[in-house]
């Protein structure tokens, strides 16, 4: 099982979602993706859409003001 990292704090819609989706598609069962993202649209929708697609949200934590870390497992 591996852990991959992705920073989308400098990206904008739709590439925030596109980059996460492409990274999630590369995971094997049990692998984890740690996504660093900003508050607002990415924080509201990335965990929700990942959960809808069958992934598990392990944690969501604020790393610095307005920047959050979301851990997603396949």
């Amino acid at each position, binding site marked *: 099982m591996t852990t991959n990292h992705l920073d989308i704090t*400098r*990206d*904008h*819609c*739709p*590439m925030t*979602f*596109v980059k*996460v*989706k*492409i990274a999630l598609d590369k995971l094997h069962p049990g692998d984890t993706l740690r996504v660093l993202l900003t508050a607002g649209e990415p924080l509201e*929708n990335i965990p929700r*859409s990942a959960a*809808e*697609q069958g992934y598990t949200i392990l944690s969501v934590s604020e790393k610095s003001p307005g920047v959050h870390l979301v851990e997603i497992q396949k």
Partner: protein
Amino acid sequence: MTPKKLSIIAFSGDFDKLTAAFTLATGAAATGYHVNIFFTFWGLDAIKCKRGRSPVGSGLLPRVFGILMGGLRVAPLSRFNFCGIGPKIFRSLMKKRNVATLEQLVEAACQLGIHLYACEMAMNVLGLKREDFIPEIRDVIGVPTFLALSEGGQTLFI
């Protein structure tokens, strides 16, 4: 659970309208939607292999259209085109502000497995063949097939 579905009729070959179509398509595909894009008339310019101005097509008039309209790289803005300077300004602004360019969105659409279709009738009118389009085009279809593919989802005309 049946995936949510979005089908887009890409009629326009304008830079801004294609950007809107591919932004919606990639955003939807990335958040779990099944996405179809049906390219017709000027929208076909977006999926040509040759992205610049090229005499693509069979017959004199289609070749003239091919040169006048060109491909993705020379797509005009629907407003403030200023003889092709408008899209260059937009591309520069998009890069500067870290927003995906039209070319990046098309690449993302292919990576995300969005289903791309070309309109058979418009291809005939414009004298275009399947080989004139990027290989990611899934099929050449007509209206009944598109309606069947889009059934049960949301459809947008851009």
